[in-house]
């Protein structure tokens, strides 16, 4: 049951290393926001090409927790939606598959923003 933790650590760590190298070795214009957008989009593309699936199989949470995993889930959902619901499914599938994550981020984000004040 708990033997999947070390693979999660390794895969998750390596994905983050890619992001760190992107930030350190490229121009200063690459901000955290650019890295996040890039990772989601790459996740969608890799997911669509079937190249992200093996990472998820090996790393579990190590591949789904990084934002590229969010992209992978979006792509997977869109393809499954297209399979079962045609064009409408292609539009709704991605959001459906990630709905809980988006809603959670929105809801918890709002709550925290209301309760706390920035510390600086």
């Amino acid at each position, binding site marked *: 049951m*708990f033997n999947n*933790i*070390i693979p*999660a*650590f390794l*895969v*998750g*760590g*390596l*994905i*983050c*290393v890619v*992001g*760190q190298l992107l*930030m*350190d070795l490229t121009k200063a214009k690459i901000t*955290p*926001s650019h*890295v*996040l*957008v890039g990772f*989601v*989009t790459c996740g969608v*593309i890799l997911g*669509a090409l079937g190249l992200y699936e093996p990472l998820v199989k090996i790393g*579990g*949470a*190590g591949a*789904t*927790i*990084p*934002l590229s995993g*969010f*992209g992978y889930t*979006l*792509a997977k959902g*869109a*393809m499954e*939606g*297209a399979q079962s619901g*045609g*064009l409408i499914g*292609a539009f709704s599938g*991605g*959001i459906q598959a*990630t709905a*809980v*994550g988006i809603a*959670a*981020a*929105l809801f*918890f*984000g*709002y709550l*925290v*923003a*209301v309760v*706390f*004040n*920035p510390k600086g």
Partner: protein
Amino acid sequence: MPNSDLRPPTLKVTPEEYKEITKKLTPKPKVVKNTILAFLVGGLICSIGQIIINSYMLYLGLTKLSAQIAGTATLIFLGALLTGLGVYDEIVRVGGAGGIIPVTGFANSMVSPALEYKKEGYVFGVGGKLFTIAGPILVYGIASSIIVGIIYLLLR
């Protein structure tokens, strides 16, 4: 546009030469140290995620898919909470991309602008700023997933 060609006296260095000097003197990021820290912090967050998912399956009897979704939501909550407590920016200061790329970093990018601009009201301040950085992520993620779905349909 950079200006040179100034009335003398002025620098006996052209903007091109200056670019070289700046490049030579600008300290480089500590790539090796940053990379190791990103690996450790990112790996740690992902393994905490895995432990949460495992426990949801073991103790709550959730299916693998539900446990994954619930685990992700839990991490988002933790990321948001740590941002509110003023801790998450410290995690990223040390861990760099290791703190930015996991969903906890996504939560941080939503909460931090909302928190910061709360003084500007609950509609434009909190409501609007929640999407300053999350907006582009969702726009590019969802739009590209729709394109993927359509291509999938066409190739089927």
